[in-house]
């Protein structure tokens, strides 16, 4: 990592839906083994959001519901190459990386918004919502509320 990469911070400090890379798992032995057994390890990438009094970490294969004190001992840094679809500016795009939720709207998946699919934000509607997307040459319109759940890989 070069010096310009953002500093690490506890999982609990990230805003909802932020894409993070895990840098350090500072939890005691047994708990750490349990987490590792289910696929959490240094360097893996996912999203965080909070739910009730738990901190949820969503990886591609598993969703962890962590207690706040456990989550506070896991350090991560934001992934600068990932942007929420709703935050793109018109004309910008890239391959879909993942959904920042354990329960992505199935309709979006069925209509082809699946990981690795190239997505481009073409324009926003006159009142800013919904969005006009280009998904593999197909024009698709979804609402900003749902676009916030989608992480796009922007190089």
């Amino acid at each position, binding site marked *: 990592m070069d010096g310009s990469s953002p500093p690490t911070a506890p999982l609990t400090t990230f805003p909802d839906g932020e894409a993070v890379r895990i840098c350090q798992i500072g939890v005691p032995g047994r708990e750490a083994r349990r987490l590792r057994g289910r696929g959490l390890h240094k360097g893996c990438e996912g999203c965080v959001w909070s739910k009730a009094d738990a901190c949820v970490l969503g990886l591609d294969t598993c969703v962890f519901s962590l207690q706040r004190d456990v989550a506070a001992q896991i350090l991560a840094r934001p992934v600068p190459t990932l942007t929420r679809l709703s935050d793109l500016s018109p004309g910008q795009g890239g391959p879909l990386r993942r959904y920042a939720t354990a329960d992505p709207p199935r*309709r979006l998946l069925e209509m082809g918004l*699946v990981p690795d699919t190239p997505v481009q934000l073409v324009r926003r509607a006159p009142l800013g919502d919904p969005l006009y997307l280009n998904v593999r040459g197909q*024009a698709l319109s979804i609402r900003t509320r749902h676009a916030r759940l989608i992480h796009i890989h922007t190089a």
Partner: protein
Amino acid sequence: MSSESRRSARSSAVSEAPLRKIAIAGNPNVGKTTVFNRLTNLQQKVANYPGVTVERKSGTLMGADGIEVVDLPGTYSLSPSSVDERVAHDVLVGRMDGEPRPDAVVCVVDATNLKRNLYLVTQLLDLGLPVVVALNMMDVAEKREISIDDDALAEELGVPVVPIVATAGTGLDALRTALYAAVGGAPDGSTGASPSLPTNGQAENGRAENGRPAPSSVRWSLQPAVERAVEDLADRLAEAVPDWTAAQRRFEALSVLTSDPLLESWADDAPAFAAAVRETTDALEDRGVPYRHAESLGRYEWIGPRARRVTQQAGEADEPTLSDRIDAVLTHRVAGPLIFAGLLLLIFQAVFSWAVPAMEIVEEAVGWTSRAARAGLPGGLVEDLVVEGVIAGVGNVVVFLPQILLLFFFLGLMEDTGYMARTTFITDRLMRSMGLSGRSVVPLLSSYACAVPGIMAARTLDSERDRIITIMVAPLMSCSARLPVYTLFIAAFIPAGSAFGMIGYQGLALFALYLLGTGMALVAAWVLRTVVFTGETSTFAMELPPYRLPRAGHLWQRIWGRVRLFVLRAGKIILGASVVLWVLASFPRAAPDPDRQAQRRAARAQYQAMVDSVAAARGRPPEAITSGRLPDAVAVAKARRDRTLTAIDARAASAQVRQSLIGRFSRTIEPVMRPLGFDWKITAGIVSALAAREVIISALATLYSVGGEQDVVLREALRSDTDADGDPVFTPLVAVSLMVFFVFALQCMSTLAVAKRELNSWGWPAVMWLYMFGLAYLFSLVVYQGGQALGLGA
């Protein structure tokens, strides 16, 4: 219903032959309807699936009488979350009441968007039914330099793949052949089969065994934890539906895992299974297994590489297409809304003004028919029933046709070109803030002309909830039938002056009435959304299909289908209501009044005396005087006689209404309407206008004994009417109260009939009538009592 629709006229000769059924599935906008039209040669029946508003379109496969083709609603998936998907799912799985499971499925696939379309194909393959893939839009794909190896695709999928161009009819023979093979050859009794068609050929690309492609299942994989759960649940399902195949059970277990409506339906049919599903999902959730999107990801993982392998794209994919360039203007943040507003103005103009000449012709024709009927029928009750009940009822139906035709022409154009989706895109945000969706804009604005086509236009809404809300509030938009009522009372009771010398009070009053209705429609929508339809709204993900040139045949079919439905379904109800209202106004008969009889005789005698005296003076027989040109004195006497007779008839009609059930009913409920300022005559006018608002004018004309519908005379009669104490019946305040009542009250049988037809139940129309009547009563009460309290009652 299904037995009726399955029996086509031509198949009666071979009714013993087993009936085979082929379902057509496919994503929206892939040309499914065109394929259906081609396969059935437009010999179709439209019905409704039981309990839902989804249309069941079926027909006979061209050239094979014993094979029925059913067009399923266009869906992206078979996992039921929308009503359309639920219907497609239930039919294909075999859970639709009165609808036996089809014997084969043809899936129409858009060649230009193979990957997304294959999603549905993989679901169909899992069902274990023979599947034929119709690879449509090969011409468009060619233009975009996309080439698809259909043999390789058939190899990958394990089912026949037939490349077609549905719009041009290319490849349809091959598709039919593949379908015959899929259902095991054309049935024996198919005498109507065209000899040019092979009836037991091999499928184009499929590995047919015994002329029948083997059901195939794809080997896409689920995450192990989810796979185990699905297998467990499929086993549990065996207890509930032992006659299902393993493929059917597995598919259902997978679907029920993520579909709440489906789970609810099983909770009734097989409680143990539903409980097992709940346990399973809870367990998966606890273990953090992302099971909800496992199916979608698993399928796409399987599809992705295979779609790439069979597709070759020479051109640059990023190059903007013609559609992209058109959209740069039509969905532009400034130009887009302006163009849409302009188009709406045009549609408005058309429905309001261009339809008027045609409506006048219809009214003329109805009037002519009435006169002809009166001339040809024996007088008395039968004549009255035919003219005032039946012909007037039919007229009430037919008079809407010009507006409906015009509106559906424009709507059809918008849908067929693909512009409709853009209007949703432009207006969605605005409409959402009021509890509606972008697709509600056109139906609601159409309702300014007439709620009947407006409600029918709500079919374009794909969310059932939005559709119900839109239909429920559409009749609050002031329609053109209210206009004559508003005009009469405004002209009679609102002063003609103007505020600040610019804005006329009368115009202002009219505008206020429109505003009142529209405002209430938005409030009602918001209330329905926040009180009745609470909870998460359905996910909005809308395809913006490429622009296409509309085709006249398709457009006409669309318009004609809707017009036919209106005339046949709503027409019956409207006609019935007209006859019932006629009966209520005509019975019991008023006893003939001896005074009026004497007056009639006197009027006739007076005229005869004049004729006789002129005849005597000229020394010619009276018949010679009345034939040919009348002498001036006789002409004057004749006119006076006719005037007198008309006046006597009008008084007799007034007495009849007073005497009739409507009259009696109105006098009974007068105390209830009194607080709104309405006496029994106004009440009788309102009751008579239950079927159609504008009827209140002719009803008041009858009650006030004004012969014919002479507005000016009626206006004077209304103004000068007094009650028993000599106070005027109609004050400006009463007129305002009555107009406000008409803004809200649902005085339109056609609207109720069409709402019943569109919502497939009497429940919603009943709620609609009640809430609108409640609003009408409440607001009129506030206007009249408030006005009186402020001293405006005089």
